[in-house]
């Protein structure tokens, strides 16, 4: 994974609450065996509407999505962050994210930025009034600079460290080999699926 520290991007607003993973990418696009090309299927059923935000010329090249409350609820499909990144998004702003989506996003370098409800409402309003707003993200300082204000956002220390340094989480677990072996030695396997 490429390290992330600071980036600047154009934000667009999609002020709908509880945007689920079936909207982000419908299941019929999950028959692929790789990660490529999913950006074209992002919000594909909503993109059938000419007025949908991502169909507008001003939304092209957007890197930040300002969404409604509770973004990413539903399934565990990692195709959701893959599709968002495939379109060009580097971050999503919401008041909170579904647990599995958030974990998937962080592992792929898509930043889930949590803000309070009043801040989200303000950003959404500004964005809708201007079609887009320019956002500057500073991960090290956990800040978003937008429309003259600085907004702090939380992120767990480990995810932040991994994003800042491009740390591979699998490599981090593999480095615990001695502890894993010790656990397996002291705990007999509870199932045996081989030979079924």
């Amino acid at each position, binding site marked *: 994974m490429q390290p992330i520290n600071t980036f600047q991007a154009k934000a667009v607003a999609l002020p709908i*609450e509880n945007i689920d993973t079936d909207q982000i990418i419908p*299941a019929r696009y999950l028959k692929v065996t790789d990660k490529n090309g999913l950006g074209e299927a992002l919000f594909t059923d909503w993109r059938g509407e000419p007025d949908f935000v991502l169909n507008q010329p001003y939304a092209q090249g957007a890197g930040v999505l300002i969404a409604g409350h509770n973004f990413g609820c*539903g399934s565990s499909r990692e195709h959701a962050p893959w599709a968002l990144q495939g379109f060009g998004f580097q971050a999503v702003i919401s008041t909170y994210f579904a647990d599995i989506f958030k974990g998937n996003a962080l592992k792929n370098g898509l930043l889930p930025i949590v803000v309070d409800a009043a801040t989200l409402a303000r950003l959404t309003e500004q964005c809708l009034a201007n079609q887009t707003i320019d956002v500057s993200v500073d991960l090290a300082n956990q800040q978003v600079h937008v429309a003259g204000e600085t907004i702090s956002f939380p992120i767990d*220390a480990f995810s932040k460290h991994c994003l800042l340094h491009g740390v591979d989480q699998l490599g981090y677990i593999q480095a615990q080999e001695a502890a*894993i072996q010790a656990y397996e030695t002291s705990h007999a396997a509870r199932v045996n*699926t081989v030979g079924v």
Partner: protein
Amino acid sequence: MAKTLFEKIWDAHVVQAADAESPATLYIDLHLVHEVTSPQAFTMLRERGLTVRRPSQTLATMDHSTPTTPRGADGIIPVTDEIARKQLNQLIQNCSDFGVPLYNLGTENQGIVHVIGPEQGYTQPGMTIVCGDSHTSTHGAFGALAFGIGTSEVGHVLATQCLLQQKPQTAEIRIDGTLRAGVTAKDIILAIIAKIGVGGGTGYVLEYTGSAIRALSMEERMTICNMSIEGGARAGLIAPDEITFAWLKDRPHTPKGEAWDAAVAYWRTLPSDEGASYDLQVVLNADELAPMITYGTNPGMGIPVTGNVPAPSDLADDSQRMALDKALNYMGLQPNQPLIGQKVDVVFLGSCTNSRISDLRAAAKLLDGKKVADGLRMLVVPGSQQVKRQAEAEGLDQIFRAAGAEWREAGCSMCIAMNGDQLQPGQYAVSTSNRNFEGRQGKGGRTFLASPLTAAATAINGHIVDVREIL
């Protein structure tokens, strides 16, 4: 210190404890794999020259993109979708290359991943179980900590049998009282989600307690835990008890003899201790519950079947009002209208929520000697090949067929609509599955989630009914 069931399982699986900088490393006892969320993880293993650390703690099946159309004269289930076929073949190749056991399409134990794990006795109390599938929460019915993971994490578990995890908070969902006739486990969980909302459980593991939960069968408990994710919780838990042990005993992969006795002795230590505390408590009374049905485009938009669709104008919050307005527009419903009498085009009985033998029996009892309404299509999709055989041995397939319903092969079918089974744009369905998101059951399709009883009663009448009136 008094511990919850969750804390006991968590503590027993910590390989490396969390500290201020890092999450805990948890050991995973059982990893379930299916064709849709695993290919990119196996590709990662190949790219890095890694192996599957514990093939004997890994089990693969096919369920999501598999057709459920009847077998041909050759006994084979035909896969006509070339992209799906490629994905299924990829799973066969991956399992072969990495030594992972696979229940291949149409073989005797194949089925929906969350049906076969318990059915074969792999799912046991006190275990940690993961799968690249959000409905892994189902297995929590046995007092196992079970949750869905993404494909990156599938790769982590394949390679190391471990996961990095931030410790979630715990919530007790307490349901005392007695369910009335016609009210089922599905109605309990739909009522819970209607109460807490689709995001209400975010960050929590839910433990379901109370006399109404203790009275449920294992299959009913699975229905409840299955939909924990629809309230935003990654996992649901129900403490193991005599009902759990009786259901598991003599399953193919549960311990036998003295090992069984030792396992049960351990399982008896798992229930939450007296005085254990939760971060949140939610209370419902089973006596007050009615059959539930959803009217909108997420599982939290549910009402008693006799209720009226809510009106956006009654909501003070802008975001909620816009969401309800959007949902009713998609569903083609009017504010304040009743759902009783709503015409339905399709009834789907199936999915990891409600496709087990008891679900099929409940629906068959209502359909016995009756006909599905003219013009209505009913699909009955057993959760596994074993459920299918059992139903056929009991003659349930004959009841469904005689009623005019389609009797299918095992799989996820119309719950996820990526396998040929899907709604047409604009169609209304009463579905026993778990998600009513826009397009979930087919682009433009409109879903009412309900119990198998409500689904069967609707199939007979051609429109939504209160099943209590025909019991």
